[in-house]
């Protein structure tokens, strides 16, 4: 395995971002998280783990490769997780897209899923809660958010880096909209000074990221839709990378470049940086790039 240190910081430092390039997304995910410090850094024995996956699309390049998720679940159980819940519902057919599904069927069956939180999710007081405007938020008002995000010990965010009509990039920051009801998400689109205002939407997404930071982010950049997103069909690229880290702004800035987007174009990155959610300047980060 070749190792390339792309960051300027000393390689002895803990990496901020680990990027693994390879043809097997399952193995790349294992290596990315191991290099970041191992799942034991994030999950302690007996912990409950909430996972948010961008799985609800049909076109390849628009949804997270299920092998990435299977690897994350395996590592979390191996680290001693007592309960793993998918914070947005995952349809059974999603797993069938993975060649690993037969081998890990039993393991997947041990996870839970919040079935009510599937598109177009509606508010139900047993599963969602209303949150006042988060402290420091500049745009978003009250939000309807999945309750369990505040109950789990560990939150793992697993987005795919791809194109979105209004935000150009959707990845770790925007993926958190999967925690909310549809009506609450629509407010992000329509409550701004103009309908579908990109600036207001980006600020609202940054505000949402103030609520509950992910403990671990694993971004799928193996095969990505780069036009006609977020559903496609459209042009695709295949960087073949799995990227792990803990800083959503840094991960988004790094992944934007991997799929040919310019981080300065992505308003969510700018807004996230201004709210001090994370670091957008990749030169300040210790980025470890591995090739399998």
């Amino acid at each position, binding site marked *: 395995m070749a190792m390339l240190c792309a960051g300027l910081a000393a390689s002895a430092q803990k990496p901020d971002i680990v990027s693994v390039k390879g043809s097997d997304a399952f193995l790349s995910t294992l290596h990315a998280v191991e290099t970041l410090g191992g799942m034991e850094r994030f999950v302690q024995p007996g912990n409950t783990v909430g996972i948010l996956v961008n799985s609800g699309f049909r076109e390849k390049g628009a949804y997270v490769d299920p092998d990435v998720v299977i690897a994350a679940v395996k590592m979390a159980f191996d680290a001693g997780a007592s309960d793993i819940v998918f914070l947005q519902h995952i349809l059974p057919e999603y797993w069938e897209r993975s060649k690993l599904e037969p081998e890990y069927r039993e393991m997947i069956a041990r996870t839970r899923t919040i079935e009510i939180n599937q598109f177009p999710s509606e508010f139900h007081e047993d599963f969602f809660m209303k949150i006042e405007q988060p402290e420091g938020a500049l745009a978003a008002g009250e939000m309807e958010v999945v309750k369990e995000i505040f109950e789990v010990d560990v939150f793992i965010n697993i987005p795919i880096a791809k194109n979105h009509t209004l935000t150009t990039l959707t990845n770790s920051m925007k993926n958190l909209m999967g925690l909310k009801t549809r009506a609450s998400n*629509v407010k992000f689109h329509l409550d701004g000074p103009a309908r579908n205002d990109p600036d207001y939407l980006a600020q609202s997404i940054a505000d949402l990221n103030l609520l509950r930071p992910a403990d671990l982010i694993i971004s799928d950049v193996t095969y990505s839709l780069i036009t006609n*997103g*977020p559903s496609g069909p*459209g042009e695709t690229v295949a960087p073949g990378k799995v990227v792990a880290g803990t800083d959503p702004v840094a991960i988004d800035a790094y992944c934007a*470049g991997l799929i040919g987007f*310019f981080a300065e*174009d992505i308003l969510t990155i700018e807004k996230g940086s201004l709210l001090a959610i994370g670091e957008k300047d990749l030169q300040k980060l210790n980025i470890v790039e591995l090739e399998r």
Partner: protein
Amino acid sequence: MKRKVSLVFLFAWVLSFGVKSQTAQEVIPGPGWQEGWEASYEVMSYEGDDLFFLINGGADLYMEYGFVDVAAVELSHPEKGNLYIELYRMDSDSAAFGIFSLRRGDISIEIYPAPWAAYGDDVLHVWNGNFYMMVSGGQMKTATLETFTTLVAYLSEKVPAENELPGVARKLSRPKGGHYAYLMGPLALNNIYSFGPENVFQIREAIVLFGENQKELIFYYESEALTEEVFAGVLSYMENARRFSDFQGDMNSFLALDRRGNRLSGKFDERMIHVTVEQPKE
């Protein structure tokens, strides 16, 4: 005789108005549109902003084009399998054509002039007047093409239309079946190529022609003066934006490279700005 002609004209006008004003729910092929087909659930319909509750990502694009209402249903047949249909009513033929041109991707058009239908392996896109229909046959067991053809005929009969192309598309010298899309705003442009968050081209109408290793964007403007003004802004933007490099330009044209190594060339010509985005050679 004169009175008779007037009545005929009036009747035709009322009829055409009635046809135009049919909602998507009134037009969508529902249960029983053909023998053996049942609905898996009641027809769902949404209008205006409620489109966000049907489309998971991308509703804003339909709104940019002029969305009016939509109906959706899954139909089931004991032998043929399941079909999922979405029928969108837009506020003009041009808007419906624009969405059709974007959504069909590179699937070629098999039937035209009206309706225009594009068949994929298990998907059908149809443009008919101010309606755009998408049919997914992913759960069909047999005879997908035959069923798709019947659906196209059904829509054509239900909404007689002439399919008025936008003026800028009519001017194209390319054949109707060529792969191109009609853009009506910045979101549509961002879907094809991102010049950044600013609407530097002040886009209202554009055509994108897809070639093997390139895209040709043609932006249309109301006047020559406006075109010149917009092009001056584009030149300044291209020269100063960090996402572009190797800029060369004069008052009428420019060359630049983007981050992916695509070579951009632009020029203005009366009321049009042409930009070609050429992929790097392998």
